[in-house]
C-alpha cells in the first residue's frame, strides 16, 4: 500500500487545484522558505482526520482555507484528496485503489468522502486504524518536532510504543 497521489484545492497556500503524483520509495519535497512544503504535510494529516487546530498551526479550523493573497481573493472551501494504492489489501476495503477526501466550507460545513461517497470521520479513522496512520504518532514528524520524542515525558513516550503495539 502506498500514497499514489495528493490532490488539493483551496487548502492553505494551495489556492489552485494541484495534483502531486508520488512514487514508491523516497519522495523529496523541496523549495524556498514559505513556499508551501509543510502545508503539504498538513494536508495529509488533515485528510486523515486531524482535529487539533494547533497541530495544523492554525487558531481555528477555518484557517486551513486559502485566505487570499495580494493577488487573489480568499476562497470559500478547502478540499484535499489522497489516493492510495491498495493491491495488498492493507486497507480493509474491497478496492485496489482507495480515495479519501475531506472538505471544509467557510460556513463551517465539513464533509468526508470515501471513494467519492460521503462517510463519517469515524469511518476514515477506522479504515486506517490497522495501518498505524490514524494516530500519526510516529508516521508524520512535523517541522521542529523530531526532538520531541526525547524531551517528552516517559508516559507520553510510552504512548508511542502503545501505538506501535
Amino acid at each position: 500500500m502506498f500514497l499514489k497521489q495528493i490532490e488539493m484545492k483551496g487548502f492553505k497556500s494551495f489556492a489552485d487545484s494541484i495534483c502531486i503524483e508520488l512514487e514508491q520509495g523516497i519522495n523529496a519535497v523541496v523549495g524556498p522558505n514559505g513556499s508551501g512544503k509543510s502545508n503539504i504535510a498538513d494536508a495529509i494529516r488533515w485528510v486523515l482526520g486531524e482535529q487539533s487546530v494547533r497541530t495544523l498551526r492554525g487558531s481555528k479550523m477555518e484557517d486551513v482555507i486559502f485566505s487570499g493573497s495580494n493577488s487573489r481573493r480568499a476562497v470559500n472551501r478547502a478540499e484535499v484528496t489522497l489516493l492510495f494504492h491498495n493491491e495488498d489489501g492493507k486497507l480493509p476495503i474491497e478496492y485496489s485503489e482507495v480515495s479519501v477526501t475531506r472538505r471544509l466550507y467557510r460556513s463551517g460545513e465539513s464533509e468526508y468522502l470515501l471513494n467519492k461517497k460521503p462517510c463519517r470521520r469515524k469511518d476514515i479513522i477506522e479504515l486506517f486504524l490497522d495501518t498505524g496512520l490514524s494516530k500519526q504518532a510516529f508516521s508524520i514528524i512535523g517541522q521542529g518536532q523530531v526532538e520531541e520524542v526525547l524531551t517528552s515525558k516517559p508516559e507520553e513516550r510510552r504512548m508511542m510504543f502503545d501505538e506501535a503495539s
Partner: protein
Amino acid sequence: MKRRFSTTYQAIRKHFKVIFQELFGGGDADVYLTNEDELLTSGVDLIARPPGKKRQHLSLLSGGEKSLTAIALLFAVMKVRPTPFCVLDEAEAALDEANVKRFASYLRTFRERMQCIVITHRKTTMEEADVLYGVTMEEEGVSKIVSVKLEDAKEVAQEATATGV
C-alpha cells in the same frame, strides 16, 4: 495486551540499540521502563551515549546528537511497525553533513517497505531520493508544484562535501 506491549517494546529496544550505533558510528543507547512492575502503565525512558563519550543526562547532548538519537528511536519504531508511508518535515535540520549522509543512507533501507515523503533543504537528502518535487510561489501567496531535476535543486540546497574541519 501485556504480552503484545512487551513483545513490541523488546523489538523496538533491540532495533534502537543497533540503529543508534549505525547512525553514530559507535557508542550505545537503550530504552528502559520507568516502572518495571507496572507493564501496562509504565513510562519509557532512554539513555544515549555517543561514541567515545561518557553516559550523561540526555539534556547535555548537543542539538545534532539529540536529533540523531530521536531519529534512531523513530527508525526503530518504523522497523518494528512500518506504516505504509511516513512524512518527515526537515527532521535532519540540526545534523551536520556527515550525519545527514548516515541519516539519508539509513532512510533508503526503508524504501521497499515504507514510502517516505521527506521535506528537506539538504542536498545530501535530495541525492538519496528517488524523485523530487519543487514547491514554489510564482504568483504571490499561491503555491504550486513544479517538477525538479536534482542538478537544479542542488543549486538552492544546503549542500556540502564531507571533509572534517
